[in-house]
């Protein structure tokens, strides 16, 4: 029995040391996300990344940038797939435009935003996040309806995640 007491104390110490840590992390996520236009999306997308439990605002911005990249990369794959099977020239034109725009997001906007966040030049992260949001919107507008956009939901997600990134990066200015 006496042998168990140190163990119990140790266990309690461990539990208590975790508790305040995770409380303040989710607090930072909440206060940060309140300053973005999409609170729920911001909270869920940040919390789903394990790095967010130890991140400061710059760290959250980095995660937000990675989130845009993941969704944009998935969108690009979807768009390229659709382009392969498209026969309508109007649809092909719109999809090709989207390829250019998503390439800009993935190869130009996000790498620049991440470097800007890491090195402390947040205005470049803000402007590239704005551009990413615009590129997704521009891709969507490229569908003249007809043909209707087959990727409205995916474009909307990338647009909103980019605006979340824009807001978080703005906190670093």
């Amino acid at each position, binding site marked *: 029995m006496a042998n168990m007491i140190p163990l119990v104390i140790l266990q309690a110490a461990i539990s208590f040391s975790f508790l305040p840590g995770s409380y303040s992390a989710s607090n930072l996520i909440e206060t940060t996300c309140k300053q973005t236009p999409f609170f729920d999306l911001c909270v869920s997308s940040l919390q789903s990344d394990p790095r967010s439990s130890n991140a400061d605002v710059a760290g959250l911005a980095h995660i937000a940038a990675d989130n845009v990249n993941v969704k944009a990369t998935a969108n690009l794959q979807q768009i390229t797939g659709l382009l392969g099977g498209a026969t309508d020239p109007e649809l092909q034109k719109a999809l090709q435009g989207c390829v250019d*725009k998503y390439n800009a997001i993935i*190869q130009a*906007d996000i790498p620049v935003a991440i470097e*800007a966040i890491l*090195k*402390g030049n947040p205005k470049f992260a803000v402007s*590239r996040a704005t551009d990413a949001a615009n590129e997704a919107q521009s891709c969507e507008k490229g569908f003249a309806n007809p043909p209707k956009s087959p990727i409205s939901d995916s474009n909307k997600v990338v647009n909103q995640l980019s605006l979340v990134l824009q807001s978080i990066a*703005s906190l670093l*200015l």
Partner: protein
Amino acid sequence: MLNMAHSFVGFCLFFALLFGHGVVELEASHHVYKNLQTDQSTASANQPYRTGYHFQPPKNWINDPNGPMVYKGLYHLFYQYNPKGAVWGNIVWAHSTSKDLVNWTPHDPAIYPSQPSDINGCWSGSATILPGGKPAILYTGIDPQDKQVQNLAMPKNLSDPYLREWIKSSKNPLMQPTAQNQINASSFRDPTTAWLGPDKKWRLIIGSKIHRQGLAILYKSEDFVHWIQAQSPLHSAKDTGMWECPDFFPVSVRGQNGVDTSVNGPFVKHVLKVSLDDTKHEYYTLGSYDTVKDIYTPDKGSVESDSGLRYDYGKFYASKTFFDTAKHRRILWGWINESSSVHDDVKKGWAGVQAIPRKLWLSKSGKQLVQWPIVEIQKLRSNHLRLPSKLLKGGSEIEVSGVTAAQADVDISFKVTDFEKAEVLKPSWTNPQLLCSQQGASVKGGLGPFGLLVLASEGLKENTAVFFRIFKGQNKYVVLMCSDQSRSSLNEDNDKTTYGAFLDVDPEHQYLSLRSLIDHSIVESFGGGGKACITARVYPTLAINNAAHLYVFNNGSEAVKIAELNAWSMKKAKLNLKD
């Protein structure tokens, strides 16, 4: 056997560095190069937006002007440059020289990552001419921990007039954030030109912030190598965010001549300019510099925020002045970034231009600075067109033909005699940019809008309007100057924000002058002889090259008189072409 082990280790270290920086994953970087290379081969075929006479390199990304100076009669400009693509990254100090600030010869990059203190980037900085005429550059480096630190570089060979090679101090970094000084390691950059105090010690400032308070941290040195932080910053302001690219210099209270950065006394006022990270606008104040306390105090009534006085009310950032000893003027450089989408920038293979260098001086009233394009730019003028004095009726426009409308210099002055129809300026109308956005060129007015339609397509489907509106204020007439980009391009992916400024000119007793430097995708406009300047980037799809037109217009009810109109075609300058 040992050699193999060494090269294997070297190989691994290289990859560790590449991944460790977290810049771009190897796979993705292949994509970047591949795409940008493809895009660059098509880029040369169709480039309607490249400038004819505004500073830019043949391709790739540029931002801040760095270390402008004159040495042995030759002008130098360094600038932030990405040798690998049309976006910010891989930043080095590119370098060009000129005899006349108009035609530029490129050299190899002067400063690029090579020591721990700048291995992750060579960011902005300034040149100081030391006693004996020896130039020294202080610049911000990004160190292996991604901290912002300050480094010194001196010319390798002073007898090379082009100063092509620079040697970095082995003592770098000379200034850095530490646990002791508590300086924020992500907010410590852009050292200014240094000045000498009466005690013969050097001083400079570096932009910083503490939470939302913008800061100009002051350092002092006796030998330009050992720098000691002063007890107080030179100046600070609440709730402005990070202060980037600070600039601190004296201006003469009389006349248009510049003065050396170290001058102080009753015949000068001091200027402190900062670039605000937050709004991407710059603002300046006029004030006095106490050399004993090393404190700058702005004049009473100075606005210390985004609503303060600006060099330029449009696109103009990271500006920097230098004292031109050759011609006794203070010259201002500014970076004009793109208003196009990133995918368009990648397609065209370049991004960013510099403004035409401007002479800078204190206005006669002493209340603001005035700027004007350097006189040397006039050597590019050709095909001088002069329109005789003429009345411009309300609701009319006149085409100015005979000049290359996409690459032109236009200078017009208006005389207003009838103020009856001037609308009343509502007291709530205090934001000129908002006012111009709400009342663009197509909104008919009482007295105005009248001005120029530049980079206009036939039929005016596309046009950029630079104009005045005159309002009846409380005790006087108020002049609003606008640059309206809302119809500048059919391409909806461009940023077509409208810009505006109030112009301190009395239209009852003075002519209203407007000069616009038009150059394919940039329009730099100067109102009232340089009292209000507005720079814009536009990307017409129809109004390009020979299909671009130039008009004078009046969309008000009241007629105005064109007192004088001069227009010139501008010849191409030699912009960084390798011989």
